[in-house]
């Protein structure tokens, strides 16, 4: 199985995402922002980083990259798509997911191990988790505060589309402690914390992040 990892100018965690894909037993394919060819991958990850320096708004410029045209088209027809951190921001800017990620309430970039709960274990990227699993993975961003209007919030909660929630003190001011959401179909997931930095407790705070990547394999095999 082939998982594409997109590199935009300024992507930082593309190498880590690819490493996690390989650790999960899949093949990682590097995709270039300026190239609309998805190289026949089965799924795509938009990695963390500061694409285009996060200037203007995070993800606002990357959203228009040639690769995104193909990604949006395939995702709309069901291809699993995961956006981590900057990738989540790109998904919101592309309107593949609702809401927006804004400046952290504390106004600082914040990097720390963060406890989250997996609130929906039926998406393409979370089916490997137990119901309400509590995990510890790194959170690191300056603009991770999830905001949306009340109607959207009600809809997200009502449809079970809040995929992950922060536990404990709200780290960034996100509405309803939202750390990750999905589209209605569950193939597109945006996540603020970084599972790809938690696949091995030697370099991460735990290995709790790995199931995001193994989930994908299960969901693809099951299809």
């Amino acid at each position: 199985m082939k998982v594409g990892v997109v590199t935009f100018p300024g992507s930082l965690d593309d190498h880590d995402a690819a490493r996690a894909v390989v650790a999960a037993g899949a093949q990682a394919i590097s995709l270039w922002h300026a190239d609309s060819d998805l190289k026949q991958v089965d799924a795509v990850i938009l990695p963390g980083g500061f694409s285009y320096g996060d200037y203007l708004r995070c993800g606002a410029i990357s959203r228009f990259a040639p690769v995104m045209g193909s990604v949006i088209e395939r995702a709309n027809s069901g291809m699993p798509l995961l956006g981590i951190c900057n990738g989540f921001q790109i998904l919101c800017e592309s309107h593949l997911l609702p809401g927006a990620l804004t400046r952290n309430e504390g106004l600082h970039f914040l990097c720390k191990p963060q406890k989250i709960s997996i609130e929906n274990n039926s998406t393409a990227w979370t089916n490997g988790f137990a119901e309400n699993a509590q995990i510890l993975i790194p959170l690191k961003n300056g603009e991770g505060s999830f905001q949306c209007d009340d109607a959207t919030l009600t809809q997200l909660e009502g449809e079970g589309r809040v995929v992950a929630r922060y536990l404990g003190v709200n780290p960034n001011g996100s509405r309803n402690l939202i750390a990750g959401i999905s589209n209605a179909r569950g193939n597109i997931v945006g996540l603020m914390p970084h599972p790809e930095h938690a696949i091995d407790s030697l370099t991460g705070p735990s290995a709790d992040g790995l199931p995001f990547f193994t989930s994908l394999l299960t969901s693809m095999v099951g299809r």
Partner: protein
Amino acid sequence: MATIVVDVMLKPEILDPQGQAVGAALPRLGFTFAKSVRQGKRFEIEIDGEVTPAQLAEVSKAAETLLANPVIETFTVRVEN
């Protein structure tokens, strides 16, 4: 040559931690005039020649597509003299 200004502000219902931080810092420095502060962005766009209505419409389109995120922000476009 002319300058077109696009002002982008967060919608009133969206949390504005930067404006809040400024609002909290002012009285600590002895400035007590502010009831509330909101912080936004200002773009100064230089264009060649005269500003036409068609061009202004084009800038508005660019503001809606790129400069502002309509999910959380509003914007205004105007010519600066």
